[in-house]
């Protein structure tokens, strides 16, 4: 890879890290990193004057994220194609895991408002797993850049 491209990718990784940190802060601030927080955010709480989220409200939140997730995952993962991980099982597993976790993170709120409270766990676990999987991918890319 040309040196200038390598710099561009390196900075992209730095921006990606900022994106992950900001999403963690946002999740913690708006929903909270607990099952109770997730349930309260989506199902509401009369004592705290929190209303239950409707189908439309959830759709408004996830709509830009569906596109952004797809684009971000594709861009980050396609950089792995330029590394030694290209032909490994790890690349395939990471791709499936990231897209599946992204899907669960986006759509689990619908199951919560349908009364399946178990999906509060799914929402939380998928969010944390997604953050960790993306961090791991960023680490793989960073180490590949320095190996060159």
């Amino acid at each position, binding site marked *: 890879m040309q040196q200038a491209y390598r710099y561009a990718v390196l900075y992209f990784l*730095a*921006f*990606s890290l900022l994106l992950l940190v900001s999403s963690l802060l*946002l999740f913690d601030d708006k929903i909270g990193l607990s099952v109770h927080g997730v349930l309260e955010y989506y199902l509401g709480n009369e004592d705290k004057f929190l209303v239950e989220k409707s189908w439309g409200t959830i759709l408004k939140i996830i709509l830009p994220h569906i596109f952004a997730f797809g684009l971000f995952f594709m861009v980050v993962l396609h950089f792995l194609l330029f590394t030694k991980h290209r032909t490994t099982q790890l690349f395939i597993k990471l791709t499936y895991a990231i897209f599946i976790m992204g899907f669960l993170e986006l759509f689990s709120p619908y199951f919560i408002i349908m009364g399946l409270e178990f999906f509060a766990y799914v929402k939380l676990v998928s969010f944390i797993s997604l953050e960790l999987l993306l961090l791991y991918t960023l680490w793989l890319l960073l180490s590949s850049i320095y190996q060159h």
Partner: protein
Amino acid sequence: MRFTLIKDLKEDMAMKPLLNGLLLFILLYFIADFFVVNASLGLLHEDIKMTLFGNADEFVDPMDKSVFLEYIHGQIFFIMMILLTLSTVYVRLCSIKRYSIIVINTLMLSALLTLISLFLSYFYTPNLLNLYVVSFFIWHILAFIMALHSLWNLNFATSI
């Protein structure tokens, strides 16, 4: 990113209009971004300070924490995607190696500094707002010049 593999972009009748369109839209984005940031956050130190922290004398409320986090989260995504695209096009079209590396480093570092200084200004010290303003203008102007330079080379350079 197929354009990075094509030998002579000027002779490629499919890729040239595509890149022209992309670069024009990137230029339009930077122009529009100036107006949007001016209306939502402000472009100068005092305006930004009032938006973020409010002003009791003028009955302006401070920006809510979740609103600020949503704003910066969206900014990070857009900046990272647009700068990755622009820098890749720029490296391909304006390939003076040492020069392009300096330009890309300045662009990316100032953009990173913009986001980090805004974040730190809101949560820790408003003194960093000046740094935010300076770095914001640096990366916007630099990115604008890079897009113009790429457009020029794509259409008027003898060989790319």
